[in-house]
């Protein structure tokens, strides 16, 4: 059979055909282009439209950026240098750089203090954000708020030291007695901290030096992007513990506690931040003792912290609700009491689930710190709209300044959200 076949057929191939490359349109760039950009006529149309839009935007923006003038003392000088070409006047950024970052009243010879504070903050935040770093660094994180206060506001060094000692005393008492009874440790810690603060306050008043080593800077002199950063970092870090407490309160089966938390959360979430800032600027002063002077910065911090803690509480409540009921029952059956169960079993899992939500709230809050410009605080936006655009040299330099502000916020917010996505992937260990 095979013989006849071999004779009757003119040609029989003995070896395999060598592999030939795939057709040109099915490989490499052209395949990718066909599949991803020109798969059918709708897609082709969309691609052309998108390319056209990108071209329009880039052709308007790129020359503007690349022709930018970085050295000039006023807008008119910028225009002379440009001589009719399209180009940005980035000179406003170089000339007003310090004002944009620190506000227009912070003493220039003290700029090193907020800058140092910023870098210390990066060190302090690092162990919170990245778990691989040595845990000992958390000690610095705990000390950082007091260092930061001293660096930014200056004044007698005893004030932050007493504040730190109070917190340390509270922690020591909590650590000593909290193991046996949470309530005893908790309330004992608070009482201990207050005792230290009151005694320390007297001491601070007694030995107030004439010329403190660090020149005191009043809060109203803070401004620029520094103010946004300070508000954002302070309020987020204060509102997370407050949010946890509110979320637990809302889950509580004690009707009164639950009621207070629900009313607080729903009230705060129901009104815009602007109205709360109005409260801070015009109304809150009525609720403090008549002779006290609580400065605007602190009042704003109070209101923004209340605002974000309500949102964070809702996020954490979602995390608590997402935990299977078995976790609660398991904690009960181990004989743990409520604080133990929360601290050891429930909260670690619930907080892990709520991290993306908390980061979202943090990013939103950081963006919302620009709203303080409405109540005439000179944050980045307040500086741009107020002193800089109103000056005779730079009247009319909108795009460079607004673009710079947008760029700063974009970098920070995008960075945080990318971090949150990385963290989410990292923590995705469970069965969800």
């Amino acid at each position, binding site marked *: 059979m095979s013989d006849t076949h071999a004779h009757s057929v003119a040609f029989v191939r003995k070896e395999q055909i060598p592999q030939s490359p795939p057709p040109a349109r099915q490989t490499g760039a052209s395949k990718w282009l066909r599949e991803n950009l020109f798969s059918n006529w709708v897609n082709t149309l969309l*691609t052309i439209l998108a390319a056209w839009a990108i071209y329009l935007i880039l052709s308007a923006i790129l020359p503007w950026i690349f022709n930018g003038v970085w050295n000039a003392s006023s807008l008119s000088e910028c225009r002379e240098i440009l001589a009719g070409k399209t180009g940005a006047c980035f000179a406003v950024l170089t000339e007003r750089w310090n004002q944009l970052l620190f506000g227009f009243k912070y003493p220039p010879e003290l700029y090193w203090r907020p800058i140092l504070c910023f870098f210390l903050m990066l060190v302090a935040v690092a162990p919170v954000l990245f778990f691989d770093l040595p845990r000992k660094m958390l000690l610095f994180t705990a000390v950082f708020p007091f260092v930061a206060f001293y660096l930014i506001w200056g004044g007698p060094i005893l004030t932050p030291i007493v504040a730190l000692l109070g917190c340390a005393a509270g922690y020591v008492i909590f650590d000593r007695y909290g193991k046996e009874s949470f309530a005893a440790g908790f309330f004992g810690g608070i009482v201990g901290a207050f005792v230290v603060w009151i005694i320390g306050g007297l001491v601070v008043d007694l030995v107030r030096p004439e010329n403190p080593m660090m020149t005191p800077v009043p809060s109203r002199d803070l401004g620029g992007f520094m103010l946004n950063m300070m508000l954002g970092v302070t309020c987020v870090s204060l509102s997370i513990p407050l949010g946890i407490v509110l979320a637990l309160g809302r889950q509580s089966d004690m009707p009164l*506690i639950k009621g207070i938390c629900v009313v607080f959360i729903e*009230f705060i979430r129901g009104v*815009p931040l602007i109205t709360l800032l109005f409260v801070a600027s015009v*109304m809150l002063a*009525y609720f403090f003792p*008549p002779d006290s002077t609580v400065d605007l910065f602190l009042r704003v911090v109070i209101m923004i912290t209340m605002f974000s803690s309500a949102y964070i509480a809702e996020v954490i409540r979602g995390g608590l609700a997402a935990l299977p009921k078995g976790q609660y029952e398991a904690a009960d059956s181990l004989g743990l009491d409520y604080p133990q169960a929360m601290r050891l079993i429930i909260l670690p899992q619930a907080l892990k689930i709520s991290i993306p939500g908390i980061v979202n709230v943090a990013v939103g809050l950081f*963006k*919302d710190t620009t709203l303080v410009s409405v109540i005439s605080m000179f944050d980045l936006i307040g500086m741009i709209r107020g002193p800089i655009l109103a000056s005779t040299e730079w009247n009319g330099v909108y795009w460079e300044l*607004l673009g710079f502000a947008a760029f700063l916020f974009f970098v920070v917010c995008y960075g945080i959200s990318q971090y949150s996505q990385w963290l989410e992937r990292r923590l995705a260990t469970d069965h969800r």
Partner: protein
Amino acid sequence: MTTITDPPKGQFRVSMLLSDTRYRSLTFQAIALFVLIVAIAYLASNLVRNLEAAGLNISYEFLGNPAGYDINQTLIPYDSQSPHLRAAWVGILNTLLVAFLACMTATVFGVVAGVLRLSNNWLISKLMAVYVEIFRNIPVLIWIIIIFTIMTAVLPSPRAFRGDDPTSTMVLGSMAFTNRGVYIPGPQLGNPLFASVALNWVLVLLFLVGSWFGSHALSKWAHAKQEETGELPTTWYYTLAIWIVPAGILLTIMGLHWQIPELKGFNFSGGIKIGGPLIALWFALSIYTGAFIAENVRAGIQAISKGQTEAASSLGLRPGRVMSLVVLPQALRVIIPPLISQYLNITKNSSLAIAVGYADVTATLGGITLNQTGRAIECVLLLMLFYLTISLSISAVMNVYNNSVKLKER
């Protein structure tokens, strides 16, 4: 033999208030109540003392006094002699107007961007990702200011439209984009029989309700037909006709025509003027919130597992029917709750109007009225009350919706 015994009754000891779980919650609540009362009393006493020191009292009488300031954009008649309460109403209506407009456009932007971000087209999906990231990560206040700056600093002044060889011309011959606002053609009713505004609205509303019933009946008939014969009749052009034809006839009878804005003196007149602040706020809120809605829409569509689409296709449904009968009803369950809370955010963010001088309720009641009368507490409380009412009613609607679409688990 039983090992479980009831706890001994009677013999109440004081220490049980803390150690016994039956009483502990009562103790804590009593402490909380005490702390709350003390705190409120402390704040209230401070308030009373501060008010006395400043010679003020809490009173809402100022709402009846003449406001004494002008508002550039009003939906209801208002002049500077109108009382503060009227100014507050103007502000409330302006807030609702911009919130409504921004909700509409933000939904359109968001749905388009969210769907396009899932497109097979690489360029389009990347472009939409860039849109979402850029607009989500920059504060809405900056967007409002940027668009307001475009409105005031880039657009030509009405003077540029003047003369034989004007530097600017009207778009489509009927719309003028100037730095004092955008002028668009406004509808005018020519028939003198329809002079009463209220009556006209009632008539239009009646026709719309009639059309709704008509189209409803039509779709019911179509479904009955499908049950009977298995064929679904094509009805979309009937539906379109039911909606358009009666309304068109009504408007023709009313004598509808468009009044085109004209350059008179130093400014345009006629037509509808949309002020720059309104446009800045509207557009900025739309693109900003649109980016968030895009993410919600994308998440909603991605939440529907591929098996659903494949199962529907294997039942023989066509792609359009797969989308409308299987994917969308499930995706909407995921999309709508965050969508409504975005609407709520738009309403709350519209309070940023004060940054560009749009006369919303924060700018009238919380801004000028507050500054003129010095009634800080009253104004801020009223302002909060308004926003709380809006928020709570929207959340109530959302709860009703959530309950109606909740997965029924048996």
